[in-house]
């Protein structure tokens, strides 16, 4: 069925036809016709942010916690350039997102008009695809194709740039949902021979390990269910990247904890010593592999990824399987049951015994204190007091983020939203708002650092206006903690510009925004303060004063291998100072 309508109406109609009821946006000159249409209908609801970057991260949080597409709507020029960080973030973490930007009228494009920027040029390398729509005839199909591209294959952000005169023009609208505009159509099923080869390798494994990632979460609820079933069936130990936490439950008996730079001792040593590695929806990122030429030297590697370019990009693998995690896990399960292999039970038993000896190191141990709140303790208490609730956690980037990954046990997918690939400070608060809008009755907590929270603190006003009772739980140590830790490790403890001297009074700041402020600095008061935070049905800033100079351990120093980890308890200051060689100092 077709209808005549303006370009601006088409945008709203296409959103409604795609089942979108919530978007995140900020108006401006070039996008006013669309905001005018928003005003005149009630199918699509806009959450007004305070900065376009916030709209982008809110859309990301919305998308990651629901599995649906996050939509942002911003104006031309600075509106679009402010969105760039969020687009790059969504690209690296494979978040489905549609960003609609206004553009100056077509006859002004190229004239350096007011608030003109080459939006498609600027965002080309940080989107999966983008369009500048110069003709009203093209708009309906491009809008629907944007949703298809964002969600098909490896998900990612797409951008549709719409000049203002196109928004005013009238044309024919048609619902193109399910009708592709381009030939883009990545495969979901893995090659049968590869599946067979993988199952044969796994069946013969003596020291197997599963290394799962964000692909499990992105693939949907089926993928997590199949992964759990697969682990149960094979009995293999499993670790996961930051992005994959919750795919397999942290309370599961085969769980080794997160791997990588701040991963657990047992996860990293299992990766180093295994003979068969099954990588499921992860991409051998440098935070995972450490020193690449010493990465898991004795293993045969199976790599499941929907993006062919992920395969052999950083690490050469033996059996690549290109396709969707859920489909392939289904195929693998079927092939395993068909083969019904007799595994080397004695070898598996010995492998688990070895793993248990690594676990016995208790690598996450820290020295607790009755005087000052240790940051690890704060996360442990936050976990203990929120785990039985309907809780979603977002984070900013830094030490607090790693402590959450280490000490907060995620048992379900889509419960943990964090900026993994790009490492965007300022992600957590707007992302939490996006999550809260999608789950109005849930408890949504942004675990933040005192530095990160200030990168997008303006979004507190968004939370108050939207009635989104998010909690910003700040581990306040007065430093950019991870920067300070690196300066200690790499730069002779010369703490160049990592001390935040002029810290705002977060309690007063919360009150200034119309939110609630809570401060806590004594371990004995912490539980009650957290309970109070949970009971408040309004946005809260929780200023949790923690030990200033705590370091995040364990840690694989830059340029080192998985079996060269620094463990917290046993490291002296001198060892920390000498931990990273000259070559490692050049790495990030």
């Amino acid at each position, binding site marked *: 069925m077709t209808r005549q309508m303006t370009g601006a109406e088409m945008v709203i109609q296409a959103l409604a036809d795609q089942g979108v009821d919530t978007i995140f946006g900020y108006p401006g000159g070039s996008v006013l016709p669309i905001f005018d249409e928003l005003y005149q209908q009630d199918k699509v609801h806009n959450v007004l942010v305070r900065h376009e970057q916030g709209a982008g991260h809110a859309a990301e949080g919305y998308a990651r916690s629901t599995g649906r597409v996050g939509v942002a709507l911003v104006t031309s020029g600075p509106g679009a350039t402010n969105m760039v960080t969020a687009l790059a973030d969504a690209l690296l973490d494979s978040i489905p997102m549609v960003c609609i930007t206004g553009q100056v009228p077509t006859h002004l494009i190229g004239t350096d008009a007011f608030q003109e920027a080459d939006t*498609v*040029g600027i965002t*080309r*390398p940080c989107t*999966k*695809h983008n369009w*500048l729509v110069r003709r009203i005839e093209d708009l309906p199909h491009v809008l629907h194709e944007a949703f298809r*591209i964002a969600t098909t*294959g*490896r998900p990612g952000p797409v951008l549709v740039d719409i000049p203002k005169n196109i928004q005013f023009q009238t044309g024919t609208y048609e619902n193109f949902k399910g009708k592709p505009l*381009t*030939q*883009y*159509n*990545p*495969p979901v*099923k*893995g*090659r049968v021979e*590869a599946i067979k080869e993988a199952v044969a390798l796994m069946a013969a494994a003596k020291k197997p390990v599963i290394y799962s990632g964000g692909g499990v979460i992105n693939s949907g609820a089926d993928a997590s269910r199949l992964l759990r079933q697969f682990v149960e069936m094979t009995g293999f130990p499993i670790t996961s990247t930051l992005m994959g936490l919750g795919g397999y439950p942290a309370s599961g008996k085969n769980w080794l904890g997160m791997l990588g730079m701040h991963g657990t001792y047992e996860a990293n040593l299992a990766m180093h010593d295994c003979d068969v590695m099954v990588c499921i929806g992860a991409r051998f990122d440098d935070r995972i592999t450490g020193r690449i030429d010493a990465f898991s030297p004795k293993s045969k590697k199976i790599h499941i990824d929907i*993006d*062919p*370019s992920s*395969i*052999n*990009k950083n690490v*050469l*693998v*033996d*059996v*690549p*399987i*290109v*396709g969707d995690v859920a489909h392939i896990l289904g195929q693998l399960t079927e092939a395993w049951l068909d083969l019904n292999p007799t595994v080397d039970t004695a070898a598996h038993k010995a492998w688990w015994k070895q793993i248990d000896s690594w676990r016995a190191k208790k690598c996450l141990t820290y020295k607790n204190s009755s005087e000052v709140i240790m940051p690890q303790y704060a996360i442990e208490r936050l976990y203990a007091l929120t785990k039985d609730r309907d809780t979603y956690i977002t984070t900013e980037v830094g030490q607090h983020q790693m402590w959450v990954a280490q000490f907060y046990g995620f048992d379900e997918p889509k419960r943990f939203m964090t900026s993994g690939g790009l490492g965007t400070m300022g992600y957590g608060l707007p992302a939490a708002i996006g999550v809260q809008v999608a789950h109005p009755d849930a408890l949504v907590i942004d675990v933040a650092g005192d530095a990160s929270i200030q990168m997008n603190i303006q979004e507190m006003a968004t939370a108050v206006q939207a009635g989104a009772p998010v909690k910003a739980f700040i581990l306040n140590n007065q430093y950019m903690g991870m920067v300070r830790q690196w300066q200690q490790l790499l730069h002779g403890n010369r703490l160049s510009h990592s001390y935040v001297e002029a810290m705002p009074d977060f309690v007063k700041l919360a009150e200034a925004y119309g939110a609630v402020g809570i401060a806590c600095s004594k371990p004995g008061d912490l539980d009650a303060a957290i309970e109070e935070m949970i009971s408040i049905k309004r946005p809260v800033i929780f200023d949790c004063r923690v030990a200033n100079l705590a370091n995040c351990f364990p840690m694989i120093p830059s340029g080192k291998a998985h079996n060269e980890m620094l463990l917290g308890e046993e490291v002296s200051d001198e060892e920390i100072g000498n931990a990273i060689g000259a070559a490692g100092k050049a790495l990030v």
Partner: protein
Amino acid sequence: MMIVAGQSQSTYFLEEEVPNTERSHTLSVLVDNEPGVLARVIGLFSGRGYNIESLTVSEVEHEKHLSRITVVTTGRPPVISQIMHQLGRLVPVHKVVNLTWSGESIERELALVKVGGRGELRDEALRLAQAFNARTVDATLESYVFEITGTPSDIDRFVSIMKECGLVEVARTGLAALARGRAGIVDSPAS
């Protein structure tokens, strides 16, 4: 090796088939002829630190809005296969074929070569041009413009000889390349 949109791919067999040495590869890329597609390809190369030795692009099927990009790049096989996969995941890319891997191919380039001078050198330039099968497309009392078609190395050779005969300037088209035999990029099966 070939990468086709919408088909399952793997790369692990490559290392056994081709020697692991750095060399130049000619890639044929079939793309939707839409605004920005060339920028996407070029941006991919510069953004990921791959080099481009030569790049040509032109519409080859008007009704289907298809263009063909021929790009010459250098690298070891894993890098080349990474480049192909990165190209393959661009939305407007239909197909990526490595002509260097898929067997024999024909490679041609066209150059316009201007030489200036009088007397003996001018005669010598004309004689050499004839020896190279170059056409004379412009002549004045003190200059020639030759048109030469051949492999890039043919043209290199011609240009370097013309330096001795008063070379003024050169314009080259970049490489056009096709696989030998019956199969075309569109209808050939994926390998």
